[in-house]
């Protein structure tokens, strides 16, 4: 699998990127375990720290566990001939896991998990020991992996603005044939040529401004105005030496656009008849000097990433790009080129795709339309008047507001009068942003993470990417989502997890993360590696193998929903209730009247047991009703992901019953 995956976006991407630009104008011996020795399975029994003597099946199982864990914690590289399996066997599982975590390749595992969490995992991070260039496209994933290896702030994963890790510049030939005059050049030579050409254009204009005798002011103005207006020529001239991902960085960094815009402003002012000629000349000269310096600074920083100078071999070797070298000098938005492609926005979707992505990836909210609590105020708009739509839009639209200034490819139009979308339509930015202006009681903007449409005090509001990052860092839903994804990554994506166990893992993680997020994350990994589910060779995905300490497994409802029911419903709907709520006991799981299934003890008005079908239908109705007097749990806010899980389970059960009873 040394074949590098060369990904080239369609020509349309280049066109869009160009329009955007114009519109705005080894060998691993040292990493292996110590004392390399035979990895052959011996027949002798082994003394294990905690389990005593391992023999036969237990010994084989431990070897399997070690091999699986090595593969998991060493970036996909399981046990090889260089590993000393015999030395590992006597160690406890925790010690083995901790030992693997000291391996340099553990950084690859964390980076791989981070990409999984963000929804952009790949088959492999490296080809022939070089990192796949797309990995560099996720700076928060890289920054968090680096932090974790140094016991730093792992929650950098939630920072949506930060460093930029430019990939080593491309070395494989570009897809397009070379232009006349470029034949025979390597890509590095072509880049150098293109950058020198651009510098020369600015240098020529500067030479004119510095010439003695001085040129006529009108001629100088004409030259500077022509240069400022040359974006359509210079952009393709520069971009011909770069691939799409690199062009994306050039555009976001405004490498050409900003100096040209600056020159246009300088020329407009200096070449006004009212400006004194001497001041005008000085202004034009300074403008040209500044523009050339900016261009040179950016090109010099980019050249630092030529592949002969930079090729990281481990996560810790990933190098930050000096963002001060870009004219924008801004923090880098963590949504990179690929996310720009995957999460496009249009003039009509108002960033809802991006909002859905954040809710799904960071909050584990799949936006199942389960209805919502009727807001206490009237909700405007077509999606507000149609409750089936509002079930999702009450969460989607406020989340989308965080992206309100980001147009195509997440380009920030905050400083522009118009905003351009991926469908190449444009709108007046101020009018566009007004969509998120809040009604009376809310903050100035109706932007945030919405937990309840009815009770605003449950919600987290903000306006900027920094605010969203703060919400991600502090929201308990995000921590639980992180732990849930870690369970999926380590155990299996389709393995059912007892919600009580998930809550227990999350509580432990949160408590430890309050001190050190990285150590907490590593401890959570160890807990999962020691779980019963991880130890199953042929696990039943519908079974919960682990429960929170102290919980008693019994004959209750399925583990997928038992804890959710216990947490949200059992307070009223239990066997000991003495009111109407007692007709449903969510802690029971009894044979249904048909004798084939099991269901809650759920009685109708005449105190007769409901069929499984009717019982589930009522549960679904109560979960999804928009009528506050019907919707359960009454007067309380149930976590969105829990309502979603319970609702989905009930629907799946009901669908199965209907399928089985179909004639």
């Amino acid at each position, binding site marked *: 699998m*040394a074949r590098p995956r060369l990904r080239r976006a369609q020509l349309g991407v280049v066109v869009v990127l160009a329009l955007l630009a114009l519109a705005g104008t*080894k060998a691993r011996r040292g990493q292996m375990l110590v004392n390399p020795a035979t990895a*052959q*399975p011996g027949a002798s029994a082994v003394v294990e720290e905690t389990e005593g003597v391992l023999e036969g099946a237990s010994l*084989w199982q431990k070897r399997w566990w070690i091999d699986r864990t090595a593969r998991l914690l060493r970036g996909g*590289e399981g046990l090889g001939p260089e590993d000393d399996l015999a030395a590992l066997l006597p160690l406890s599982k925790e010690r083995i896991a901790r030992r693997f975590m000291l391996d340099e390749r553990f950084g690859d595992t964390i980076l791989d998990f981070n990409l999984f969490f963000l*929804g952009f995992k*790949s088959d492999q991070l490296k080809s022939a020991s070089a990192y796949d260039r797309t990995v560099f496209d996720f700076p928060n994933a890289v920054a968090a992996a680096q932090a974790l290896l140094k016991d730093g702030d792992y929650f950098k994963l939630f920072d949506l603005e930060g460093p930029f890790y430019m990939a080593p510049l491309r070395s494989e030939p570009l897809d397009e044939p070379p232009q006349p005059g470029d034949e025979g050049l390597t890509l590095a030579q072509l880049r150098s040529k293109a950058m020198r050409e651009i510098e020369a254009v600015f240098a020529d204009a500067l030479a004119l401004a510095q010439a003695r005798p001085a040129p006529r002011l009108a001629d100088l103005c004409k030259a500077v105005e022509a240069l400022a207006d040359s974006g359509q020529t210079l952009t393709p001239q520069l971009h011909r030496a770069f691939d799409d991902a690199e062009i994306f960085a050039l555009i976001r960094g405004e490498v050409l656009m900003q100096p040209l815009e600056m020159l246009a402003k300088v020329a407009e002012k200096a070449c006004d008849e009212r400006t004194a000629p001497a001041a005008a000349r000085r202004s034009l000269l300074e403008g040209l000097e500044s523009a050339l310096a900016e261009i040179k600074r950016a090109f010099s920083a980019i050249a630092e990433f030529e592949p002969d100078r930079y090729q990281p071999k481990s996560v810790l070797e990933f190098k930050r790009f000096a963002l001060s070298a870009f004219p924008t000098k801004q923090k880098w938005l963590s949504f990179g080129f690929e996310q720009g492609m995957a999460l496009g926005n249009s003039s009509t979707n108002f960033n809802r795709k991006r909002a859905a992505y954040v809710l799904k990836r960071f909050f584990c909210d799949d936006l199942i339309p389960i209805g919502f609590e009727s807001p206490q105020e009237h909700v405007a708009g077509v999606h507000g008047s149609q409750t089936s739509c509002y079930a999702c839009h009450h969460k989607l639209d406020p989340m989308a507001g965080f992206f309100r200034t980001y147009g195509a490819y997440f380009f920030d139009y905050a400083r522009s009068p118009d905003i351009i979308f991926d469908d190449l339509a444009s709108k007046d930015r101020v009018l566009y942003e007004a969509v998120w202006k809040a009604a009376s009681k809310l903050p100035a903007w109706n932007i945030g993470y919405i937990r309840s449409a009815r009770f605003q005090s449950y919600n987290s509001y903000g306006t900027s990417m920094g605010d969203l990052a703060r919400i991600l860092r502090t929201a308990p839903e995000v921590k639980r989502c992180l732990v849930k994804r870690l369970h999926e990554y380590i155990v299996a994506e389709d393995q059912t997890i007892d919600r009580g166990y998930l809550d227990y893992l999350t509580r432990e993680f949160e408590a430890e993360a309050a001190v050190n997020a990285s150590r907490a994350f590593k401890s959570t990994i160890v807990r999962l590696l020691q779980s019963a589910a991880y130890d199953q060779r042929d*696990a039943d995905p519908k079974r919960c193998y682990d429960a929170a300490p102290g919980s008693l497994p019994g004959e209750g409802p399925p583990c997928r929903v038992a804890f959710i029911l216990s947490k949200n419903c059992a307070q009223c709907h239990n066997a000991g209730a003495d009111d109407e709520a007692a007709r449903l006991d969510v802690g029971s799981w009894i044979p249904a009247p048909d004798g084939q299934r099991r269901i809650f003890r759920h009685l109708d008005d005449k105190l007769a047991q409901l069929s499984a079908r009717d019982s589930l239908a009522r549960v679904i109705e109560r979960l999804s009703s928009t009528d506050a007097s019907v919707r359960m749990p009454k007067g309380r806010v149930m976590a969105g992901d829990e309502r979603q899980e319970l609702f989905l389970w009930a629907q799946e059960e009901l669908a199965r019953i209907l399928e089985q009873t179909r004639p």
Partner: protein
Amino acid sequence: MMRALCSAAFVALLLQPAGAMAQSSQFKGWAAVSRELSIRLAPQGHPFELDEFLPSGSMDELLGTWTTFGTEHRFRNGTPNALNMTIWHAALAGFAKAVGQSCTSPRLMFHERFLTTLRTLCAWPAPAAKEEGVLLAFWTSVMGYNAGEHEYAAWRDFFLREYANQPATETVAAMTFAITMHPSFLLNR
């Protein structure tokens, strides 16, 4: 004989315990399988170029992959079906044949430790090649510990019985093929 092995592999898929049948097991994917074989068998730092065994260069994506571009990534094409089983069969048969041919004319570069085992096994059908230690070492070198011990025993007994007098090249190829087509090797769990 290879046809019989292939049938045995399909039957093995069907004979998985009920728990395994209840889940929608997915292939690990070509990238993961290639990596596992390289780590276990190839010299350190010199992974195999297994793509040469694929019937066509881009078919790896049909064997289960995370990699895509321009959309969120999810594991695709991982559910076993007639087409991807055929591709697995073709690719791994090619690899197994290359391992078998290494008894006479090496095509692949192996790690010294595996090579030592392979050289002994290449004496097949000589008794030295049929010793328990040799067979177990070969099995674990290729399979790792993905499969249970009883799976090893079934594999060993099958070859001691059915390939007792077959030539080494054919036997080693068939042994490799039987391991790499085993569900415990190909599937995630």
